[in-house]
Structures are given as C-alpha cells and as structure tokens.
C-alpha cells in the first residue's frame, strides 16, 4: 500500500497516537467539572492550546478548538449573518467549505464577490482591492490551495483589508508543517486549521481569532471555548492536535526539504517516461510535495482505478459521496479545458513517503498508462 494523497488526509503520527490512546484510557473527566479529573482534562486542553499558539506565533487566548477545518471556516462565514457590513470577498479556488457556505448564506442576505485566479491559480491583490465596497466586512483567501498548492499573497491581501477596515480570514488548512506560519507577521485576523492535515486526528480543528476581533458562535449550548463553541470538548483529539502542531512546526524545515526532494525526483522520473505530461500550477511558489499533472488522453478515473488495484492512493477532481468524480472547479478556474481537467490527477507526498516509494509510484503510473492505451 502506497499512500500519496496527503493533501486529503495524513496518517497519524505515532507519538500523537500514543498520547491520544493514553488519554482515552486514563482521562475521562469533563473539562468543565471542578474536581480533579475535570481539572486534569481542562489542563490537557490548555497545554494543546499553548502548543498550537507557539506553532503559529499567537497567544493561547487567541485559539479556539472546533470540530474540524470545515467547521472553523463555517464559524467565520456564518458570523456574517450577524454583521451589518456583510459583503464577503473570496476567490474562485477556495475550498467548498467556503464557497458552498457563501452560496447558502446568499439566501440569508449575505452577499459575496468571487475574484478570479490566473493560470497558475494565483490571486491578484488588486482584484480584491477593486471589489471592496462600503458593505465589505470580510475577505477570505486561503493561504495555499489544496489541489495545486499555489501560495497566495495573503500578507499583501491582509494589508489591503486593514487599509479598508475589513476583517481578513485565511484558510491555512493545507499549510501547517510545510511553510512557516506567523500570524503576527502576516497581520491576520482569523485563520483556520485542521489536525488531520498535519498527522493529527480527524474531526478536530482550530481557529486563530486575533484579540479584539469579535466573532459570534455557531454552536450554542455551553460555555466551552469561551462561549465560542459549545459542547463537551474532544479532549484526546484536541491534545492530538496540539502535539501534532508542535511536531509539524518543529520539523517544518526538514519536512519542506524532504517533500521538495520527493517532488523533484517524481517529476524527473515521470517526465523521462512520458514527456507529454504537463504540470498544473507553479513550479515554485507552491506547497512542496504536491504535484497536479495532466496526462493527455488518459482519463483520470481509469488511472485511479488501475493504481488503486495496485494498492496506490492518489486523487483527482472533487470526490462526491457516491464515489464519482466531477471536474475540479479549481483547475476549471485556472482555465483548464474539461478534457484536460478529467485527465488530471493530484499526487501529494507526506513525511512518511520515501524515494523508493516514488520509484514504485512512477512504475505503476507508467504501466497503467500503457494498459489504458492498450485497451482503448
């Protein structure tokens, strides 16, 4: 089994796993209880908060834990229902947990503008500036894209937002552990995270909300997370997120070089065998280890089935709950034709992948291409 879909999710880190098992077994108190076992649980959450805060250079008080990255994004956008200035600016390559939420919020009177991207998936900050109106209350732009890895100029966009007294949110779900994140330097107001993208558990996420920025809660019914997210905390999950964030940030430089090395090696090998392959997005200015490629005349669904039958996991398009694939809206926004779109796949390496695995991946892609060409 070869796993090359680390942008979808990552295998859990062994240390994180051990910590969580231990907590699940031994820490059962409700963090809201005042007696010892409750206090212990509460303490574990606060340790995790400090670890994530350290990883992104925020204060612990600026972190709230959520039930995942999509929930984090939802909290930020649903807040607009309460705001007077409720126009939102976002981009055409955001995650569905931004774009579909905005579509839903339109019914409740929250308006939005979607700015385009260029052929590399890059947003022009000027486009954002041009679309700011007196009602604009929020700009939400991802730090790096999940399908092609493009790194967006969020520092510049944050500056523009603040010039116009507009809140700036960035979805950084793909980034932690691959690039440095310093919320103070980036001048961010709000940022979303998801533990399972950096070798932590699924179903836990976090929001950085700068001191002084006021957001309304979406889930109500308890005073947890300073009233920002009701519900008894997922203690072991939060602890897992905290430790995973610490590890990711401590090894960020090593991880970056490792992923870049795998990426370059992969590109070299595959181009050597199939020089008609094209890569979507930037060569640099992107997340390391993430390659989106188009293989002419090889439908990506057939390639994926062949690779899956070889025990190799990569991905394409946007998967739906009945398992079928639609053309990727991100590649579409970058101007790819529908044909090329459906011939594109994403390979995303992770910290556990090796050069030898890249060899096997390339061999399997090569033999699948040969098989598909033979049968069609």
């Amino acid at each position, binding site marked *: 089994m070869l796993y090359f879909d680390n942008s979808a999710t990552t295998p859990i880190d062994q240390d994180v796993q051990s910590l969580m098992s231990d907590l699940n077994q031994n820490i059962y108190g409700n963090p809201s209880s005042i007696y010892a076992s409750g206090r212990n649980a509460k303490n574990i959450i606060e340790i995790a908060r400090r670890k994530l805060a350290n990883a992104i250079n925020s204060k612990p008080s600026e972190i709230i834990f959520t039930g995942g990255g999509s929930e984090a994004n939802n909290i930020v956008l649903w807040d607009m229902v309460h705001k007077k200035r409720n126009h939102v600016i976002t981009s055409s390559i955001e995650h569905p947990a931004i774009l579909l939420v905005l579509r839903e919020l339109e019914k409740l009177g929250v308006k939005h503008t979607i700015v385009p991207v260029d052929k590399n998936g890059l947003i022009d900050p000027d486009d954002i500036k041009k679309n700011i109106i007196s009602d604009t209350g929020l700009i939400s732009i991802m730090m790096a894209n999940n399908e092609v890895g493009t790194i967006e100029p969020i520092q510049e966009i944050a500056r523009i937002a603040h010039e116009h007294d507009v809140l700036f949110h960035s979805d950084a779900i793909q980034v932690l552990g691959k690039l440095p994140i310093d919320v103070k330097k980036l001048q961010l107001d709000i940022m979303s995270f998801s533990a399972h993208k950096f070798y932590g558990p699924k179903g836990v996420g976090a929001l950085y909300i700068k001191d002084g920025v006021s957001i309304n809660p979406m889930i109500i019914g308890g005073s947890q997370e300073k009233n920002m997210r009701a519900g008894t905390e997922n203690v072991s999950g939060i602890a897992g997120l905290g430790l995973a964030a610490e590890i990711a940030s401590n090894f960020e430089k090593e991880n970056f070089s490792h992923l870049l090395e795998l990426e370059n090696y992969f590109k070299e090998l595959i181009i050597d065998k199939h020089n008609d392959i094209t890569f979507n997005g930037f060569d640099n200015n992107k997340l390391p280890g993430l390659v989106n490629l188009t293989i002419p005349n090889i439908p990506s669904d057939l390639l994926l089935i062949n690779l899956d*039958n070889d025990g190799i996991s990569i991905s394409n398009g946007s998967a739906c*709950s*009945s398992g*079928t694939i*639609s053309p990727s809206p991100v590649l579409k926004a970058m101007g790819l034709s529908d044909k090329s779109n459906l011939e594109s796949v994403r390979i995303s390496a992770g910290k556990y992948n090796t050069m030898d695995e890249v060899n096997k991946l390339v061999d399997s892609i090569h033999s699948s291409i040969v098989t*598909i060409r033979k*049968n069609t």
Partner: protein
Amino acid sequence: MNKKIVVGISGGVDSSVAALLLAEQGYDVECIFMKNWEDEDGEVCTSADDYSDALQVCNILGLPIHSVNFSKEYWDKVFTYFLSEYKAGRTPNPDVLCNREIKFKAFLEYAMKLGSKHIATGHYAKIECINSQYRLLKGKDKNKDQSYFLYLLSQEPLSKSKFPLGDLEKEDVRHIAKKAGLPTANKKDSTGICFVGEKNFKQFLEKYLPANPGEIISTDERKVGTHSGLMYYTIGQRKGLGIGGGYSDNNDPWYVVEKDMKKNKLIVCQGKDNPSLYSSKIIVTQLHWITNIIPNEKQELAAKIRYRQKDQACTVELIKNKSAIVSFNKPIFAAAAGQSIVFYKNEECLGGGIIEPYVN
C-alpha cells in the same frame, strides 16, 4: 486465462449476490457502481445511500469497488428520448433503452478499458450460446424474469455478459445474501425509473415538461372532468382521473382510452370490459431481433406488452421497414403507443419493438 469480470453493482440485493456468486466461482471480481443521474443542483450527490450499501457489500465480500459517472450519456441517450416521447403523448420505457445504451454499452466499454473481457449484472435472465448464436432466455424465477427489459440487446453485448442470477429465484437470492451477512439482504426492490430513483413522478415530469391542462371527454363525447396535462396519463389508467359520480347511471370506474394531443383532450370510458380498451391488432415499429437468424415472414409467437404480463399468444406478420402487424388471439388490454412489445418462443426472448397506434 483472464478470469477478470466487472460487475455492475447498484447497492441492491440482486447485484450484491451476483458479485458474491462470481467471486465464489473463482472470478477476479471488480465492482463498479454506476451513477447515471444528477439532480439539477450539480453539487448535491445523489445515490449516496445506494453507494454506501454497495460499499459495505464489497467490504464484506473483500472486493474492490469504484464509481463511474455516466450521467451525461444517460441524459443524452436515454432521458432526452424519454422526454420527447412523453411530450408526444406516448408511454416510453426508459429502462429498456438504459440497458442498451448504458449498462450494456457505456458500462461494457468501460469494463473493457479496465482490461476485463466480461461484465455481469444482477438481472433475472439467462444467456445461452447455441449454434454460435447468443440467445436470451427467461430467468428461472417467472415472477421476476427481466428479459422484457433486455430485448434490445444484440449479439456483442450478450457474448460479453453474464447473468449469475438466471437460475435462481428471488427467494434464493435473498437467502444467499442473508447467509453471507450482506446488509442488502432485506432491501426492498426498487420500483423507480432506473437510476433516476423513486420520485413523485408527476412532480418530476413537471420540472421538465410544461403541463397543459384540458378537458376529459367520455367516448360518447360528454365532458366529464378536467385533466392536468396529457403527459401524466397512460392508456388504461384508472386511478387519479378525478371523475366524480353523476356522469352515468352506473358506478363503474373510468379508464383512459386515448389521448387526443391535437385537441389536448383525454378520452375516457367506463368499465374494464369496455371494448375501446382492447386491441386485437397493433402495429409494431423499430423491430429488433436478438440473434442474427432471419425471422419468418409470418410466425406464431407469444408477446408481452408490459413487464410481468403473462405471455399473450399472437401472430407476427413482418411488413417493411422493421415493422410488423401483430394480431392477438385474445384482444389485449391497454396497448399504449411508445411501450415495448417483446416476443417470446417458449423460454427464449427473441426481440421486440415499439407499439404504434393501429389505424385501420
């Protein structure tokens, strides 16, 4: 020997057991879930529940499963025809076309691309090769026999297909599924249009075809009610006409006899025995024969004009342009234009065609 086979799996009990039986027979089974319909809102995933059932079945059986989306092919090749027939006041059978265009064409081709030489489905029918002709036979379970829906297949798809349930009764199939612990063992049979799913048919059709209400007229030319659009009615239909009492001396139920598309009138009559509901002769067009054997000009056969109908003895006389005149020994009830008539000789399904209104 290439023992690879691709099984079309729907999340129902029949295809689950088809996959199970082939795996037991030593085939290298790969399951494909077909998604052929997308609701207008492209972002919403339809058929997610069926896929999740299929996934659980494959997990228990230890078989790989993948999905494929043929909704464009379904729309172009099946649904547009379905709509145009309805618009013309006819009663089409989309499942017949779906088999020819999707399951035994698009899906078959897809399986070939995956390097398989055969596909299998959970249909209740049999395939036999006699004298190098592939013949389609009724399934053993006479109550479930699905050969009616498969009459448009020809030699090539039949030569590449397997129906593992052909020799089983539905009860056996459920029993096998239960024994294997499959979650689909007690799943209710679907009754909706293939792939579109079970919907309120009137509401569904309304979305695609504008309704044009008009009068309901009795065969003796009296106005007896109003209809909500001719496309919602089928010849022989009894329910949902909304004709109250007081239009005649008796309380016999009303039936749809005819749809006058030009005048937008629905013609009805009273009593199931009313002769206007019966035909002893019909015209059949778009004839298709399953084998390459040239049929006799005139032959005594049996026919079904709807799924699960008992075989009706008839004489089929070929006329030009893939058409025939079919005379029934006993007049048949409610032959609706656009419906498929399927011919049988004992157990063998020979082919069929489309019913046209008979004009003397």
